[in-house]
């Protein structure tokens, strides 16, 4: 992303103009999965916000401050005014920081998207937490839940400092995150989803935990359109395993079919759990992704 020289940047992940535009946007989850604690996210249940919802009969023990005295004077029957309850929504950012993300700007793009979506949460006075998953068996790096505009710096610093390495499969990383995480809301999972494991189980657990899945698959251009040919020995960047492939150029057609099938499978798995899925290239312009693609897909508003 272009940084104008001489201008102090708030973060190295996003330039100030992008931040400014992001501050005027909000996350747009399909369901209102909120916490009981008060927040700025309107739950739809009766609450204490200034937004009137309905009347109900007064019951003994109700707070008399919510009795509509004008109605009482006209009807001589007490009615209690009901207001929209504003509850807090939890936005949990899960960033795949394994070695497979260290190709062609995938990890950087994942961190930028995490920063942007986290910023949307903070600006909407949601609780935002972040996890970075590197090594299998180790606890993911963790940004405790924070909220409010003031927490922007913490969020950005956390994302700026996480390093990419390791072999943490994303499905296991999600489960590791859920062992620590409490709260309902949105789980933004940023990964390439190139895993040997079964991500259905991880998505099920996210769904069970009351987290709406925002899955973003970040792929490198060479993964989307590999230009290879001949006999090759592929080396897995995470575990060093090798795979001999002969006449790789002849297999590209099948490769594309399998890649699209994986996207289809991920999208279906997310939709079945009221979630959303998006696959992007690490070379796609960030502004186009944030302000065009996500908006058109209804992820943000």
């Amino acid at each position, binding site marked *: 992303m272009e940084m104008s020289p001489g201008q102090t940047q708030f973060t190295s992940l996003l330039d100030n103009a992008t931040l400014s535009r992001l501050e005027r946007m909000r996350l747009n989850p399909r369901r209102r999965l909120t916490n009981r604690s008060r927040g700025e996210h309107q739950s739809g249940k009766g609450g204490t916000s200034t937004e009137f919802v309905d009347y109900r009969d007064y019951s003994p023990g109700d707070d008399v401050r919510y009795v509509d005295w004008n109605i009482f004077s006209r009807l001589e029957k007490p009615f209690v005014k009901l207001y929209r309850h504003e509850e807090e929504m939890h936005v949990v950012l899960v960033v795949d920081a394994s070695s*497979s993300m260290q190709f062609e700007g995938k990890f950087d793009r994942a961190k930028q998207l995490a920063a942007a979506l986290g910023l949307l949460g903070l600006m909407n006075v949601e609780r935002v937490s972040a996890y970075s998953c590197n090594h299998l068996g180790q606890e993911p790096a963790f940004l405790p839940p924070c909220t409010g505009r003031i927490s922007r710096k913490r969020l950005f610093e956390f994302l700026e400092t996480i390093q990419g390495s390791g072999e943490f499969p994303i499905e296991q990383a999600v489960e590791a995150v859920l062992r620590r995480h409490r709260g309902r809301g949105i789980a933004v999972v940023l990964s390439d989803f190139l895993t040997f494991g079964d991500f259905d189980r991880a998505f099920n657990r996210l769904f069970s935990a009351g987290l709406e899945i925002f899955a973003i698959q970040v792929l490198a251009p060479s993964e989307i359109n590999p230009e290879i040919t001949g006999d*090759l020995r592929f080396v*897995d960047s995470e575990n060093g395993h*090798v795979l001999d492939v002969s006449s790789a150029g002849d297999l590209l057609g099948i490769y594309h079919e399998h890649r699209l099938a994986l996207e289809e499978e991920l999208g279906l798995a997310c939709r079945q759990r009221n979630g959303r899925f998006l696959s992007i290239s690490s070379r796609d312009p960030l502004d186009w992704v944030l302000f065009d693609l996500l908006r058109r897909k209804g992820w943000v508003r």
Partner: protein
Amino acid sequence: MGAMTWPGFLAVHSAWLFLLLIPLIIFYFLKLRRPKLQIPSLALWRSVLADRRVNSPFQKFKRNLLLLLQLLLLVCLVLASMQPFWPSGAERVQNLPVLIDCSASMAALDRPDGLSRLDEAKARIGQLIDEMLPDQRMSLIAVSNTARRLTEFTDDKRVLRAALAELKVSQVASRLEDGLRMTQALARTVPVETAFLYTDGNIPAIVDFELPFQLNFQRLPSGGNNLGITALSAQHRDDQWEVFVRVEGARPGAQQPDGAAANRAATTADDSAPPAAPPPDWNGAAAVQLFKDNRKIAEEAIVLDPGQSQRLEFLVDASGPSAVEVRLMPDGFDALDADNIAYLDLPVARPLTIYCSSELGSYRQALQGIKDVVVYPADEGGDAPASFDLVITDRKEDAELESDTFLFVGVIPDDVGKLLKFGEGTVQIVDWHRSAPLLQHVLLADVQIADTPTSAEGVKDKDYEELGYEILAQARSGPLILQKNLGGKQLSYLLFHTDRSTLPYRVGFPIFVTNVVQMARRQAGLSEVVAQQTGVLPPRTLSPETEYEVTGPDGSRQSSRSSLGGVLSGIAAPVIGRYVVKESGREVASVGVSLLGPSETSLRWIEQLQFREMSVAAAETMLKSDYSLWTWFAGLGFGLLLVEWWYFHHRPAGMA
């Protein structure tokens, strides 16, 4: 529908080399060099490789193209080492004696500036050499009027090609027997099933030989039209030589089995039967030039139709010895050059000198009626010459006289004496050699002979023949007239004295004496001179036991030593032209030899060879031989090697 032909292998044991395929496959997979490429995750590629389509046998095969090329390369090399061949259908032979006719007619061209028959034969034999299989061996034998082995049985194609390249046409007539005998001798050292004969078919149809092997008679395409001199001779008449030249026009064609073609060729131009219309490409016009001592003295133009001949007569002064050369200058295309020139050596014309014993009055009386003879001792006396052309005597000691022709009357040779005994009574001649020059037109029936030479007990005719005598006449009890050729001398023996027989009173006696004189004339070269043919120079009497050097027309030199009697013989003369005999660098004689072969000039071919017990038909199609395939496999292997090299070094690999 014929049976399917499968290729054969000469070295089947090399099939063990196919086992090399196993280590090749193992090493291929162990040592396959693949460029390493680090990718984020193998997850997608593993699922790709697990795809059923990827694991189809064809895809696996396609992905291992390098291995496929290496396997094909190895298979090609192993197949080449197994020495495959494609059978021609003919029976395979291991030892191939190849007889190549290199007689004069093989120099015939098929068209102007075309190939000679020998060149055609060389091309075909060269192809045969090229297609020789490794277990086959070939021997080349040149056949003309004799046979010459060019190579041993060898599989060295270089040696065979070199020998073939050096082969030249001998300007002599064909004679097949020597070549076949040589092949028969070779067959005693190595098994020979079939001999191959390459000829233009212009060879004698009847071969006096019993074939112990099969003969593959390969007849080459015939040459073109030809004009040639087929006879050259001279007769002495009135201080002049009448030189006769016969020129024949020949258009190639098959000989008739009964020799009708030869007879037709001898037909003169003035035959009553009208000649057939000449073919469009025929040009029978020519000029015949006569040179005497390198000076042209006569020229005559002739026009011949195909198959016709013409006899020309020229007169040459006989006052001194002369070398005559006849040249034929055809106007159009002439297939054969060798028969366009002929040589004739004419001696000085002189009377025949005869020594006739004084006691042989009947002979002396008979000689008086013969012209151009001088008889010694003369009745009127006088000196006798040192040598005679003919000696007629009844004394054994007259054998010391110098002469080339002797007639001994009542003289028994020493070596024959022990085979004979003399009895009582009279004998009659029961049989005689009527075609012998000595007895031509002489009727010997009922001649009473008082002498009775009788063969000793147990003596057969072959005993005389073993001593070199030919029996010209014989009684029931034994031979009466013998003839022997001794060192160029013609010796005739009457084993009875004519004075004691009724022969001098018979009409045949003067004819008998005339025959003797004619023999002497011929021996002395006084009556008729016939041009010498190529082959061997005629024996010539020179100084005894002297070393002579003979230089041929092609510059070749031969050294030979004359015999005790001074006869120089056995000089090979395969090339037409003049042979010069030198003694210590000094020319002592010169002999011209010519082709003069009507059969060679006719360029007619035979359809089949007739041997004693069988006949062999000519084949005009080219001989098929087993076709060796190893070069194809080796070439294919080389091609695969190039493809593999290109594939290995130029294929793009890794990230494009």
